[in-house]
């Protein structure tokens, strides 16, 4: 606890200091200068020249837009709204003065040296040389969020850091208020995606925005947006051992590159720099008194070696590794203890015995023995053949450090810690769980203070668990997450089981401060890494020990020849299927399928609310209602006409009406329809119903979907019969089609990809059936895969643009842009969802945000390398400028048509703000594509039902403009907004064709 009574260390006093409920938070977003660099403690950044605050303020949900100096921030009701407003701001920046060259030479200093390392290396029976990189910026998230509330002239700030330093004074200066009006609540962040090193930056941003909005604002900053480069302590260790396994020579060379990040960690909050507030001269609190860090003597191995050399490289003119001593100590302990384990494995020794062999320090050796005994450590013989899916292992690590005496007495404090970690590794997923830890700690600090053993155990458990957390925050695949809304709020409490922690040996305070935990957990990382090696034979020399990396390493172990190649196996299967089919299409196919007996519909209340809710989300992900609802018809009662190259197909009634719907379908019948495309009565369904995709749905999701559909209100509505022309009216032919083109296999995760990617793939390839519209189909109406997957297709007379590498989008799609588009129906650099995509957006709005993010992540993975946001914005500006230039040289009647009919809603630089958005045509994919279809379609029919009403509406011009005018306008738009593309040569034909096939109008009115 601090001496200040207004600095609260939550959750010491829970309740009173809890932040306001989540629904009151505004999402803060700060637009960072595109150029941001730290040089010798000073910030070099681009200058803000101008921005369009009015446009941003006008957007829905925007609570405040704050511009002060180079600081530009927004607070809005939701994160997407804030992001949209940030785009609308169109901030313009001026490059900063050139930074001085920073190619400074390395200075190497010798920390310790004795013996003849070269000779020992030369005589050795075995040698090893390895690098152990340790990311300084933190393992999980290089970022941090903080919250601030401005109310009644007082500021309350919640930040996940125990080291606020001079933050109070800095905030006071920033807001021009007295320090007495600021309460800092040092919120112990639950979960681990907060890196307290950046907390003060986030806190200052949140404070500024909260002050401006008079509300609660939450801001998350990422290290990279603060100009922090990934800082790494790289420790290189070479060792040599004799025939009997004694380590004869040990050479350590460590270097740290912390230029950007150390500056960011220790600089006053970025907001102070950007707003050009003069920072108060306040000392940052001495680190050891607040955090209990150890001095970086861990660079010296705590073992006796006959020959030893330790050197450290520094870049002059930047903070040395001492500025992050605790992290550096962890890095070095990790390197030493991992290396000793490697030597033990290479020379076939027990790792504990090897350490004891080189430990002269009797007190340390005593601790090692006690902990090993407590853990019942057994020298391990042969590793048992790994048969089971779960592999277990144990690892040992030891640390001995001397903490600089910043505590009361001023005496350095020597402390010892030893760990035995036990892990379980799931060989399929690579997931690691630390199941147990035995630890011991000893120190020569006084007996005063005592140690809170329980708190320490928790800390140790968390430290161990933290090492194995995957970077991805996606939920477990493929079970759909239940309705619990999980959005970008404070991270939820880690749900995984914390390992059991047993205390072996002594447990003594390292000092009177909080420092014990830092010293105690020093061996955590190497102990876990060594245990993973023991379990799997996979050596991880860099944290975090994520499931993904272990899975890949295991896969490489199992199959050293080839790393898994996506799609290769699938292609072989396809060829095989093709060959079989060609040989005996109608022999092997089963054209007639048995009906499944009708059943009585389940009674009301048969399914739990939770199941039905899950089914509702599954239905949303599957867009059922999009096709199964006629315009103005009852939901899911069918009757929508779908134009296909083979004729018009009418969607069916999927409400639980017994006579006209699926009320008498058993689950077995339902599942067969979803996975194989067979009607309950045995009829083949046409693949306009995307059972080819739905087959991938998990059982749980399918059951929930069935529950949801059966629990709905039955609607009696007979959909029109689908009557295709010969030969497509012969439904049994579909059996052959299925044999050729359909694989009713459930979704299989790709182990080489992240959980988020797989979740996205599951949703996009399965329920979401993106490729049903966005992939081209062959002459028989089957989706094409491989390179043509998502390569653009057709839907209800609209061109479904290509996604991924084949996209015509003038500004490449980013994952973030895809997310914004899928979530809000609009991406500023691309445009708004229309046509058949609009109802998809409506359905996606029902899904949890994480799922939509996963889909965006998956789709983005098909594109080229992601351009960063600044680059995309620059490209967008360039395109806008180019079309503005082109406009000057174009004239004539079409130019006047554009100015009269289009400009009011499409020229964001002209006129006044209008209801809805003003989508830029210069950035619109449809104007850059090979076909004018969508442009003509939208001109003829307008956008009567956008994804959300916030986007605004477009009137239809088909009735008011004649063919000549429309043709002129289409050519004009192409020339003005895509001047680098050739003129379309088929405009007249397309116009005639699309006029003849008007967009869908209600053709089925429910009569009830």
């Amino acid at each position, binding site marked *: 606890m601090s001496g200040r009574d207004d600095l609260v260390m939550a959750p010491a006093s829970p309740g009173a200091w809890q932040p306001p409920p989540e629904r009151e938070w505004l999402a803060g977003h700060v637009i960072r200068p595109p150029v941001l660099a730290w040089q010798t403690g000073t910030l070099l950044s681009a200058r803000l020249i101008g921005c369009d605050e009015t446009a941003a303020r006008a957007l829905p949900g925007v609570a405040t837009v704050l511009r002060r100096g180079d600081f530009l921030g927004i607070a809005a009701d939701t994160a997407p709204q804030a992001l949209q407003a940030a785009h609308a701001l169109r901030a313009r920046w001026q490059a900063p003065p050139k930074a001085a060259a920073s190619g400074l030479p390395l200075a190497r200093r010798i920390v310790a040296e004795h013996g003849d390392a070269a000779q020992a290396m030369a005589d050795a029976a075995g040698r090893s040389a390895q690098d152990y990189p340790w990311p300084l910026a933190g393992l999980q998230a290089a970022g941090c969020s903080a919250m601030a509330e401005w109310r009644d002239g007082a500021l309350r700030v919640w930040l996940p850091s125990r080291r606020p330093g001079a933050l109070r004074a800095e905030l006071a200066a920033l807001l021009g208020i007295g320090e007495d009006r600021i309460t800092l609540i040092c919120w112990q962040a639950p979960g681990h995606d907060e890196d307290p090193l950046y907390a003060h930056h986030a806190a200052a941003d949140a404070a500024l925005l909260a002050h401006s909005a008079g509300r609660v604002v939450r801001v998350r900053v990422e290290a990279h947006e603060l100009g922090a480069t990934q800082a790494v302590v790289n420790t290189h260790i070479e060792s040599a051992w004799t025939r009997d396994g004694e380590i004869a020579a040990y050479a350590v060379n460590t270097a740290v590159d912390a230029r950007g990040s150390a500056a960011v960690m220790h600089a006053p909050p970025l907001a102070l720099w950007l707003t050009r507030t003069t920072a108060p001269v306040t000392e940052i609190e001495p680190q050891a008194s607040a955090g209990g860090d150890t001095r970086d003597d861990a660079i010296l191995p705590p073992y006796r070696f006959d020959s030893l050399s330790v050197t450290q490289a520094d870049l002059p003119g930047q903070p040395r590794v001492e500025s992050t001593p605790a992290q550096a100590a962890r890095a070095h302990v990790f390197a030493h203890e991992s290396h000793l384990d490697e030597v033990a494995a290479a020379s076939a020794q027990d790792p504990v015995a090897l350490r004891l062999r080189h430990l002269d320090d009797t007190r340390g050796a005593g601790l090692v023995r006690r902990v090993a005994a407590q853990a019942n450590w057994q020298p391990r013989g042969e590793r048992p053949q790994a048969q089971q899916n779960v592999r277990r292992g144990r690892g040992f690590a030891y640390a001995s450090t001397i903490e600089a005496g910043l505590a009361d007495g001023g005496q350095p404090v020597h402390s010892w810690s030893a760990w035995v970690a036990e892990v379980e590794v799931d060989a399929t997923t690579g997931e690691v769980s630390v199941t147990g830890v035995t630890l011991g700690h000893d120190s020569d600090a006084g007996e005063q203070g005592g140690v809170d053993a329980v708190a320490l155990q928790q800390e140790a458990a968390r430290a161990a668990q933290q090492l194995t957390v995957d970077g991805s925050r996606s939920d477990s695949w493929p079970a759909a997450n239940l309705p619990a809304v999980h959005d970008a709020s404070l991270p939820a409490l880690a749900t995984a089981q914390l390992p059991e922690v047993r205390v072996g040996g002594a447990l003594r305070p390292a000092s009177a401060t909080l420092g014990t935990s830092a010293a105690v957990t020093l061996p955590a990382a190497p102990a876990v890494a060594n245990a993973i090696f023991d379990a799997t034979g996979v050596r991880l020399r860099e944290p975090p020990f994520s499931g993904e990396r272990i899975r890949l390493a295991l896969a490489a172990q199992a199959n050293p020849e080839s790393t898994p190649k996506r799609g290769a196996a699938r292609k072989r299967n396809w060829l095989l299927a093709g060959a079989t089919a060609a040989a005996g299409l109608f022999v092997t196919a089963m054209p007639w399928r048995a009906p499944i007996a009708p059943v009585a519909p389940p009674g009301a209340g048969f399914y739990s609310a939770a199941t039905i809710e899950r089914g509702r989300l599954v239905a949303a992900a599957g867009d059922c209602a999009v096709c199964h609802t006629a315009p103005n018809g009852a939901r899911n009662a069918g009757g929508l006409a779908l134009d296909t190259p083979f004729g018009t197909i009418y969607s069916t009634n999927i409400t639980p009406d017994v006579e006209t719907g699926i009320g008498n379908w058993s689950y077995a019948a339902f599942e067969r329809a979803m996975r194989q495309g067979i009607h309950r009565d045995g009829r083949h369904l046409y693949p306009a119903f995307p059972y080819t995709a739905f087959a991938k749905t998990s059982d749980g999701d399918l059951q929930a979907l069935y529950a949801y559909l059966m629990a709905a209100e039955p609607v009696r509505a007979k959909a029109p019969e689908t009557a295709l022309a010969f030969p497509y009216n012969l439904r049994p032919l579909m059996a052959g089609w299925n044999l050729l083109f359909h694989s009713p296999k459930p979704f299989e995760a790709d182990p080489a990809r992240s959980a988020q990617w797989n979740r996205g793939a599951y949703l996009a390839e399965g329920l979401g059936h993106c490729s049903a519209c966005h992939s081209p189909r062959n002459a028989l109406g089957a989706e094409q895969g491989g390179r043509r997957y998502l390569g653009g297709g057709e839907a209800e007379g609209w061109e479904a643009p290509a996604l991924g590498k084949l996209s015509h989008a003038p500004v490449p799609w980013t994952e973030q842009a895809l997310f914004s588009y899928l979530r809000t129906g609009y991406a500023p650099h691309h445009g708004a969802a229309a046509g058949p995509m609009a109802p998809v957006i409506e359905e996606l709005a029902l899904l949890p945000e994480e799922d939509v993010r996963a889909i965006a992540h998956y789709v983005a993975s098909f594109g080229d390398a992601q351009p960063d946001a600044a680059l995309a914005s620059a490209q967008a500006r360039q395109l806008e400028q180019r079309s503005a230039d082109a406009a000057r040289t174009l004239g004539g009647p079409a130019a006047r048509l554009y100015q009269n009919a289009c400009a009011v809603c499409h020229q964001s630089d002209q006129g006044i703000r209008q209801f809805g958005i003003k989508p830029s045509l210069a950035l619109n994919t449809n104007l850059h594509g090979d076909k004018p279809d969508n442009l003509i379609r939208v001109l003829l029919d307008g956008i009567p039902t956008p994804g959300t*009403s916030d986007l605004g509406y477009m009137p239809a011009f088909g009735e008011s403009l004649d063919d000549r005018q429309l043709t002129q306008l289409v050519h004009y738009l192409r020339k003005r907004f895509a001047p680098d593309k050739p003129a379309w040569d088929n405009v007249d034909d397309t116009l005639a064709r699309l006029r003849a096939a008007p967009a869908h109008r209600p053709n089925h009115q429910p009569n009830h």
Partner: protein
Amino acid sequence: MNTPRPLCLRVNRTTYQLDAEVDPDTPLLYVLRNDLACNGPKYGCGLGQCGACTVLVDGVAARSCVIPVKAVAQRAITTLDGLATGGQPDPVQQAFIDEQAAQCGYCLNGMIMTAKALLAENPDPSEAQIREALRFNLCRCGTHVEILRAVQRAAVLLRQAAGQDGAA
């Protein structure tokens, strides 16, 4: 089931329940004029081009002839009819009267409503900014200069009114 719920519209601080027969795709303008007798907004081109039908939706200018009524069911709509308070014309209306800024007057609904939206965002616009704001309000009459002056005068009146409120 699934009988469409009757739409509710909040127009000029009054909430109206529409007849169930009203098609949700009906342009807002038709409902305002034909069902709610708000005849301030005018039917000009019917394509959102001329601005004669302008109303404010949540304070933002909107061309009511191209917005379906379903889109604005949960929003606050203000028409010219709702600008006056306590029988007194709004300062923007007063300024148009003072400057005699009408010839035939058909476009004036759009001019006044657009000016209202402009002044809410920019209380002290330059002449160039006024011209820019009104560029998509089409009109064939001879009072463009008067309209410009009216908007400038409205800005002054609004600031005065705000000052009085502040003093009171």
